[in-house]
């Protein structure tokens, strides 16, 4: 097992490195490059431009720029000294060892062009709302997809199954943004005005989410605060998960049907086990094996799904940050978000693989 995990982690490293290269290419591809902000402004003196270039390392060959951005190279080093961090050890080692603070490896993603904040701060701040949204969506998604799929499989060709099938096909074909907008107008606009149209907390009663005051408030009014967030979660979560539920309920149904058709299920029935035990112990346990892997692989896409949902519902998470940054060409933010989400995809793949091994006794590493 350990060997397998180690091997998979080692395999993931070149992929992660490749991702950083691709992400760095975005900077290079950005119209005008990092200097666009100043390049053509006659009020900026050449000396100022030069110092900016120097600060960004733009006077260096691209591999060195990349190395600095990654934190492999020390920007203040000279010659081969660029490899050595302030503490005399290789620059790419963790900060406590190398003393280096520059570059992605040390958590430095640069500064937002738009607001000038460190990118990592913005990402960290946006991460929690996204985790709440995606986490809730994930639970709902898994539970509903499995219940729907299993029930439909057990009662194959029933009215319920047919209804679930129609839902699955239509839900799968529905553009998420369209659904979100229709939901807003059905439940928080001119239609039934019963759910908030956007945001994460009720501004009137709650301090801003994530601020220190909020946690004080949360501590003293926990049920109210949770209820508030729950109310704001309803529409975005539905919007986010319909596609996933639609796709995965079919997946679960098919997997369950396949499982139900297996010999061991017949054996279980031949043993005289009650239908419940046969379905939910013998068939479901096996049917879930591919589902777990599948869901593991899909989880990261909740975050891209959140791009749409958060934009429509003003949910202050990673997705909204992404759209805003795209609109404003704020590529340090874009690079940061892209890098973080890509790493999450790689990690999720890794976890899905390992998890599969854990739950399926047949897999030996």
């Amino acid at each position: 097992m350990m060997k397998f995990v180690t091997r998979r982690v080692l395999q993931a490293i070149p992929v992660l490195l490749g991702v950083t290269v691709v992400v760095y290419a975005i900077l290079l591809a950005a119209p005008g490059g990092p200097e666009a902000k100043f390049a053509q402004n006659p009020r900026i003196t050449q000396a100022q431009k030069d110092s900016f270039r120097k600060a960004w390392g733009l006077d260096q060959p691209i591999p060195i720029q990349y190395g600095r951005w990654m934190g492999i190279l020390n920007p203040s080093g000279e010659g081969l000294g660029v490899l050595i961090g302030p503490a005399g050890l290789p620059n790419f080692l963790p900060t406590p060892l190398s003393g280096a603070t520059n570059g992605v490896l040390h958590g430095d993603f640069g500064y937002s062009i738009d607001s000038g904040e460190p990118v990592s701060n913005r990402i960290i701040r946006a991460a929690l709302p996204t985790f709440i949204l995606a986490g809730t969506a994930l639970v709902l998604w898994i539970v509903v997809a499995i219940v729907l799929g299993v029930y439909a499989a057990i009662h194959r060709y029933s009215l319920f199954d047919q209804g679930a099938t129609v839902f699955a096909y239509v839900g799968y074909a529905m553009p998420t943004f369209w659904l979100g907008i229709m939901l807003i107008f059905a439940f928080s606009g001119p239609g039934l005005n019963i759910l908030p149209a956007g945001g994460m907390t009720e501004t009137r009663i709650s301090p801003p989410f994530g601020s220190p005051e909020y946690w004080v408030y949360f501590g003293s009014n926990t049920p109210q605060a949770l209820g508030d967030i729950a109310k704001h979660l309803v529409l975005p979560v539905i919007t986010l998960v319909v596609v996933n539920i639609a796709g995965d309920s079919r997946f679960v149904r098919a997997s369950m049907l396949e499982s139900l058709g297996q010999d061991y299920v017949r054996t279980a029935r031949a043993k005289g086990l009650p239908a419940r035990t046969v379905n939910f112990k013998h068939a479901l346990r096996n049917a879930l094996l591919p589902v777990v892997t599948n869901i593991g692989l899909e989880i990261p896409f909740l975050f891209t799904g959140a791009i749409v949902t958060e934009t429509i519902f003003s949910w202050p998470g990673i997705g909204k940050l992404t759209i805003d940054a795209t609109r404003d060409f704020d590529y340090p933010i874009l690079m940061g978000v892209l890098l973080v989400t890509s790493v999450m995809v790689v990690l999720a793949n890794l976890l899905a693989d390992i998890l599969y091994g854990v739950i399926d006794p047949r897999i030996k590493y």
Partner: protein
Amino acid sequence: MTAAAATTGASTPHSDGDRLLDVRNMQTRFHVMDGVVPAVDGVSFTLDRGRTLGIVGESGSGKSVTALTIMRLLDIPPAEIGAGSEAWFDGRDLLALSESEMRKVRGKDIAMIFQEPLTSLNPVFTVGAQIAEQVQTHLHVRAREAWSRVVEMLRLVGIPSPERRAKQYPHELSGGMRQRVMIAMALSCEPKLLIADEPTTALDVTVQAQILELLKTIQQRTGSALIMITHDLGVIAETVDDVIVMYAGQVVEQGSVADVLLEPRMPYTMGLIESIPTVEKRGGRLSAISGVVPSPFHLPPACRFEPRCPYAWDTCRDRMPDLSVTRDAERHARCHLHVAGAASRLEAAVSQHRQNMRVGRQLTDSV
């Protein structure tokens, strides 16, 4: 050799103390996209307590479906059990039981062993757990007692260090070992009837013999009745008392194993026997039944074997033969050769068969 008898005549099987199973006019159909498949078409047979019955036939002859129908393991739909079908077991018609009553029969009174032990065991549970589950379901014992029963059963079927094996997953066992587990599982609640559906087909030849031997000894020791479903006449010869031969969903011949194997009365059975490779036949041409099993959607209108039958004549194309008593008592065959007036044809067929089988002696040795 009277255990297996056609139940063409009226009888009251449930009043007969020795009679364990009495299947009457069983019809099982499948509704599939292209139409209806009559998988079992009017099968009847009986089985007494402690006796063994073999069901032989090619793939698609309906032998497995017969067993699954008795066990009520078919999904309805697409399967459909024809009205008038009966399967009297120990005084009750299995086909009329409620699902919950039937559940108490399965695994407890009737147990089944399947062909492929790897896929028939659930890969994600230990073998011990799978046996214990059945024990707990039917015997209502505590987990600890169930577990000791598991170990006991595993030991009974000859698995070494059963305590350790019980905690292993199916994929960690060899094929023969897995089938032993299946047998242990089937016997764990001391069933009155054991149905073994091609129990050795998926196994190595050497292991096959062991498993058959095991089945035989266990059956004798526990005294349960056994239905052995197989396409392998060799298996039949070694293990059963009586045999029925199925073709295209119908019983075409039935009788004691020695009679059927030595004196087949139906050209299909003859063909089956002739196609068995034997030591003596080595080097010679292996005979086989020509043609293929007819499509279930396009069954021949009269005798279903007629298109492949070397002795077929006009009558065979006119009407379906009944499963009737042959000139030997207690023997039934579904063939026009046995009607009056076809005696010369029958003689020709029999003598041809004898000629084909001139070296087929060894088959009888084991009976």
